[in-house]
């Protein structure tokens, strides 16, 4: 009573714990607690302020698991409560340098999410019915392992498939799958980066670029790296660093991205014409003689080109230059202006600035035009062409192959490559694909190309992420097509709902992984750790499995796969078990500690020494710092001379100058010097690609321009046809992974259709009004957002958002999903209507009562049919659509889809392919990269018989044939 009265008057006596501050030498504030105090760090609790309440923490580094950038995080673990208080950046991480995007600190809200799945669940009743029972990890492992073993024993290896979203680790699963001896790795790459990968691979062997933004003088982005993409935060830091040092930035994007808004030049060409834009720049650089002659002479495979295509003529560089000028003579800026709608004057101006930047010219294409368009892979090839012309490959401020700046250490007891080839992953129609034709899986299943006995979806949500999600749903519901579906996921997803097991896996602070990314001219590895386990072990506790220290029984995959593999082959008779035995305790099961201890002791150059200098074992060093810089200032690796030792027993091909050793190319003679070069057949940058010719695409031997399926000539604007650009991300969300982060969904929860006011006026809609968008296979209804930030004639809609669930209190994150009714109108027609928007709900987090937004967005991807590019295999995301005002009975979020129509469109696109075999009866050129690369013999066809005859009985639809305005072979 006395306290009550006292409290009326004033507060109780404040607590005044004392902490000695750590200001730096100048008395300024510092960014992070010094590393030597990470085990014992005390600071005041913000929510008690201004009371000085001291809290004692252990700081454990890890890496983020939201996007693929692998930025460093530092978890603050309260030693009293053993809870994670917050996650900051890791100041010693070479890529992210202590800084993060919104998704880093938001990891905390994902860890504490009251909606997350805490225990292994097994389906009860029909698949998709939504009834679940909790099971033990033991039972789940035994059941799944038994089914896999059964498949292996009956020689149905190709029916076991692991399908991953973004891996978040380097090589771990390759090792597991190769230990099983199967070709079972499926990925999401061909709905994401596949097209650009082919473009880069054709030039340089490596399928990704590593731009050295920080030192560039001119940066040309076909990406939105100041807000999203691989690798957003690290790259954004370095792009702005360059900008502040005076670099100019040009961004090519159809809509005004945040990145474009920071640029000196924003170019918004008609979607799909980007390659023409880039070739016009090349045209200016070539015609005005602004290109780097010496670089081209040394590093472009012009000799091979002349030798093979002009064998009757002199083989001189001057001859090549003459042909080069002729070849691109048509791509004048004036031509490009007509084609792209970007002014010729601007193209010329930028081309000259690019040439002026010379070797300090940086580029990047990430998704953007490459992933939107038929022939998008040529966009990456044309972009890299500009780097070749300026000689900015491998230079300071230029672009290097990603492999120089990404370090993947070798694991212990590495299995031999699998001897199998799985046509469900790499079908013969797509011999050049980068990589698996993952998004066609439902159509392959429906066409009877195969079936799945055990199918893992791992932090992967194809029903929601991929185009044509209802075809996915149909095959997932069909137990004859998909036997056992195991979803490894931290949260419920649209796909997990149709699983047989839902197994909870940890987020960034709850699991082990090693990851490295090409963030700058240097390489590093980051170490992800289950921070609660690590902290509690330091405090003296012991755990056998990570799930004992994580919330509920949330596990980590590393331990899951070890234990699953062990059970698949517990007696070792299948030859699998031996790969999961400890390198330190022969015959016994490897622990995750041992796995990483071995890697850090044996596979990371310099780590052992660095650790020893601090008196630490390599594993202890990595546990302490969470990251290690392997190399710094990496430039011009292609110019490295081969040593005498390397040249010992090597052969030089007298025609090609390629140096080989034991049948493997290791370098090339240039100006009589043995030099490493690039991992292409010619060891040079392949302007001219014999591979394209050999694999039936002679018209695409050179960087060229392919008119997209959404070229303006295919769009009848009078009939309200428009191009829908559905590919862009938001700075705060990350596909299917961020629906559990309240702080991120509070910032972004709508994906309205961007529309130019002119188009809006024509249609009679204003911001907030509904618009019906009809695709080839269905329709969706969304609101519009009027903006001058998009080209008239084009609409855009972010693919983030539009999450849904089928049950009111489970099956989806209530922070971000709408409750929907999904009705099957007939065997192939589906209709979805939103029943309830996002609403406040009661949970153990009082914040869930404070949800103030109601929008969940609209799931547009359901209404897209698959568009596999016939060369790269990439899904071409852009959509030709018809737009109109809605009818009175049509509601926000309505979706209609006809999957029979979707299968027809699949067949139309499939008919455009030019299937393998290529030379030597191969399935795929051996030199090209492939995920989980099989043994060389697996590349050879056993027979030439096609699985499915697709060339008949389809409509005559072939944009490749329709649109060859500037066929590269015409000369």
């Amino acid at each position: 009573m006395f306290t009550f009265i006292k409290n009326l008057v004033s507060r109780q006596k404040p607590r005044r714990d004392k902490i000695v501050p750590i200001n730096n030498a100048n008395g300024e504030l510092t960014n992070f607690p010094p590393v030597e105090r990470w085990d014992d760090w005390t600071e005041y609790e913000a929510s008690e302020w201004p009371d000085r309440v001291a809290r004692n923490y252990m700081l454990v580094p890890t890496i983020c698991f939201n996007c693929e950038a692998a930025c460093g995080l530092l978890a603050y673990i309260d030693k009293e409560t053993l809870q994670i208080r917050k996650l900051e950046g890791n100041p010693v991480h070479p890529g992210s340098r202590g800084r993060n995007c919104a998704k880093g600190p938001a990891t905390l809200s994902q860890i504490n999410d009251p909606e997350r799945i805490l225990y292994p669940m097994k389906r009860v009743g029909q698949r998709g019915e939504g009834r679940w029972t909790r099971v033990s990890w033991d039972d789940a492992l035994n059941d799944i392992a038994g089914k896999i073993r059964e498949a292996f024993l009956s020689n149905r290896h190709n029916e076991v498939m692991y399908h991953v979203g973004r891996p978040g680790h380097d090589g771990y699963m390759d090792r597991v799958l190769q230990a099983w001896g199967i070709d079972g790795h499926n990925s999401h790459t061909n709905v994401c980066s596949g097209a650009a990968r082919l473009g880069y691979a054709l030039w340089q062997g490596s399928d990704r670029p590593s731009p050295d933004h920080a030192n560039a003088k001119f940066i040309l982005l076909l990406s939105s790296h100041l807000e999203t993409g691989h690798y957003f935060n690290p790259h954004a830091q370095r792009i702005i660093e360059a900008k502040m040092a005076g670099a100019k930035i040009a961004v090519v994007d159809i809509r005004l991205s945040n990145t474009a808004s920071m640029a000196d030049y924003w170019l918004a060409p008609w979607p799909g014409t980007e390659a023409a834009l880039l070739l016009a720049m090349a045209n200016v650089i070539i015609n005005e003689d602004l290109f780097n002659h010496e670089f081209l002479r040394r590093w472009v495979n012009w000799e091979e080109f002349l030798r093979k295509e002009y064998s009757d003529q002199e083989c001189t560089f001057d001859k090549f230059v003459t042909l080069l000028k002729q070849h691109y003579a048509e791509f004048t800026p004036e031509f490009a202006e007509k084609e792209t709608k970007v002014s010729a004057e601007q193209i010329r101006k930028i081309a000259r600035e690019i040439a002026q930047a010379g070797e300090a010219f940086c580029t990047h294409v990430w998704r953007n035009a490459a992933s939107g368009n038929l022939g998008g892979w040529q966009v990456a090839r044309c972009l890299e062409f500009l780097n070749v012309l300026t000689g900015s490959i491998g230079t300071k401020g230029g672009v290097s192959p990603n492999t120089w700046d990404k370090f993947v250490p070798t694991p212990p007891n590495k299995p031999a490559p699998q001897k199998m080839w799985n046509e469900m992953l790499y079908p013969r129609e797509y011999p050049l694909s980068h990589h698996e034709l993952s998004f066609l899986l439902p159509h392959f299943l429906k066409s009877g190309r195969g079936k799945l006995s055990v199918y893992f979806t791992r932090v992967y949500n194809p029903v929601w992420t991929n185009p044509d999600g209802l075809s996915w749903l149909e095959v997932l519901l069909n137990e004859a097509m998909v036997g056992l579906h195991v979803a490894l996921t931290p949260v419920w997803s649209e796909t997990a709902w149709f699983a047989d097991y839902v197994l909870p896996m940890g987020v960034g602070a709850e699991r082990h992984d090693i990851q490295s990314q090409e963030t700058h001219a240097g390489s590093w590895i980051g170490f992800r750790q289950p921070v609660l386990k690590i902290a509690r072990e330091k405090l003296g506790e012991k755990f056998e499995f990570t799930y004992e220290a994580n919330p509920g029984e949330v596990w980590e995959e590393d331990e899951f796969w070890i234990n699953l593999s062990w059970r698949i082959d517990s007696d070792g008779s299948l030859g699998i078990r031996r790969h999961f035995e400890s390198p330190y305790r022969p015959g016994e099961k490897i622990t995750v500690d041992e796995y990483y201890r071995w890697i850090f002791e044996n596979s990371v150059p310099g780590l052992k020494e660095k650790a020893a200098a601090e008196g630490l074992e390599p594993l202890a060093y990595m546990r302490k710092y969470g990251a290690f810089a392997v190399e710094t200032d990496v430039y011009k690796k292609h110019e490295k001379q081969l040593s005498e030792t390397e040249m010992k027993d090597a052969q030089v091909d007298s025609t090609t100058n390629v140096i080989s050793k034991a049948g493997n190319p290791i370098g090339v003679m240039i100006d009589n010097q043995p030099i490493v070069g690039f991992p292409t057949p010619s060891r040079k940058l392949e302007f001219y690609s014999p591979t394209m010719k050999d694999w039936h695409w002679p018209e695409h031997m050179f960087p060229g321009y392919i008119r997209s399926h959404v070229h303006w000539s295919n769009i009848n604007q009078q009939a309200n046809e428009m191009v829908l650009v559905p590919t862009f991300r938001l700075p705060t969300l990350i596909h299917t992974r961020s629906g559990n982060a309240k702080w991120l969904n509070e910032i972004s929860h709508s994906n309205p259709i961007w529309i130019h006011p002119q188009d809006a006026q024509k249609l009679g809609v204003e911001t907030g009004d509904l618009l019906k968008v009809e695709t080839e296979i269905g329709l969706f209804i969304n609101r519009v957002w009027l903006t001058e930030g998009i080209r008239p004639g084009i609409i855009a809609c972010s693919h983030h958002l539009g999450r849904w669930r089928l049950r009111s209190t489970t099956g989806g994150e209530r922070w971000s999903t709408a409750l929907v009714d999904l009705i099957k109108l007939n065997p192939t027609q589906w209709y979805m209507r939103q029943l309830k928007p996002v609403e406040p709900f009661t949970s153990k987090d009082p914040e869930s009562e404070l949800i103030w937004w109601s929008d969940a967005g609209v799931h547009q991807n359901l209404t897209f049919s698959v568009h596999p590019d016939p060369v790269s295999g990439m899904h071409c995301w852009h959509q030709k659509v018809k737009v109109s005002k809605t009818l009175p009975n049509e509601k926000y979020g309505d979706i209609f889809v006809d999957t029979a129509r979707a299968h027809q469109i699949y067949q139309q696109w499939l008919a455009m392919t030019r299937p393998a075999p290529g030379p030597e009866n191969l399935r795929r050129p051996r030199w090209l990269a492939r995920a989980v690369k099989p043994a060389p013999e697996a590349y050879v066809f056993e027979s030439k018989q096609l699985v499915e005859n697709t060339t008949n009985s389809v409509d005559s639809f072939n944009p490749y044939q329709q649109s060859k305005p500037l066929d590269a072979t015409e000369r």
Partner: protein
Amino acid sequence: MRYGFVIDQHKCIGCHACTVACKAENNVPLGGFRTWVKYVEEGEFPSTERHFAVLRCNHCENAPCVKICPVKALYTRPDGIVDFDQNECIGCKACMQACPYDALYINPHSETAEKCNFCAHRVEVGLQPACVIVCPEQAIVAGDLDNAQSPISQLLSKERGVTRKPEQGTRPKLYYLGSSKTALKPELQKRDNSYIWSQTGLDKPTLDIQAFIAQAEAKAKTAYDVPHHTNWGWKVWAYLWTKSIAAGAFFLPALALILEWQTSLSLYYAAIISIIFQIITGGLLVADLRRPERFLRILLRPQWKSWLAIGAYILTAFGGVTTLTLLAETFNWHGLTHILAFPGAILGVMSAIYSGFLFRQAEGRDFWQSRLTTPHLFFQATLAGASVLSFVAPIINLVNGHTFSLSFIRNALLTGVLGHLAIMLLEVVTSIAAKDKPQMADASRAMKTLTHGPYWYQFWISAVFFGAIIPLGLLLTATPTFLIAILALSSLYTYERLWIKAGQSVPLS
């Protein structure tokens, strides 16, 4: 030591990392933001621009939130940080009206006001604020403005920093580099009913009124923002109304007694009326607090610059005098009543007009900065007091014989209505005249909502015509006073409502 921020919009990429890092560090609730990133778009395709602005507390040297806080829950630390104490805050929300930058919000868990406090808890252990260390671009710089060698001072020596609303005289210690001309100026932005990837969180009337205000000047479209709600509602305008009654119903009879136009018994009844309305007024004030159980702190740990605290003392004193008067008359100490009439009249008038000073301390709301508010409140109290007396006095006179001077009451009503009308019109005229003065521009924008905006009908017809012009006309006829009073008093309530709403109609950020 003088801590301040630089936000370098040359570098800021609008990624919202600061927003989320702040939420995690400070347990900021959903709906509340200590820092946020606004997006605005301007220009026509393809020359379209999008600009970002990181908005938050400016740690003003002359912080209006500190001045208005009645209980010292907001305070400026010796190192220049404007900090707050959730344990002291009573939830009066006055700080949210005083801040011209929308920096404060009420935490629904603690029901107290919060804002950016420069991560004072980190600063005291030697660490940079959470937003500084997370920023991918190092676009947020925190440091000592007094130290010429500090990175923040070095930056500001190379490029002149811009502050938000310098005309407010708050002297912000947050400087923007490279900010766009429009992003920091809400008056140049218009808001649609949704944003680029979120809902506005605002209701339709708010959006409508903001759209009306924006239509004249907006050059840019708000593409992203966080919701800021107005927080003074019916309890505040009802308080103004009941307080006017409580004040006028006593100071008018007190004046009449001093002038010996009435008997001291009139103050007995006046005191009863006044006390009833004082209790309602007090009840409304306490009920409007988010932490009503802490209301006594206004009196027990007052911050003497706050007119909320001063006003509480005036009201308390007024309550004391009226109660004493009641006692005096009850025990027939008429002499004492005569004496109490002097302080009673003065305290009554002070009770009526102190709110003028209080609203002027609400520096965020230019509309409430008018010097005419104080006299206006006097006339409103006169009108309100006379109106209530006109209902009661005839009955008392009927029972007790001549207690009240009915002609005085009618004249008082006439005076009140006349003054009320004159000042309403004067406010309109001065607002038009002052629209080009930067410090008055928001006041003019708010006034426009009354004169020809969404409130025009209620303002001109209800408040002006039925509330003043008709009563004035009727006062020249033989219409019974109480009938006129019903009209005047009910319209006064409408006017108070409009005045509170219009004052909060202009977006601060």
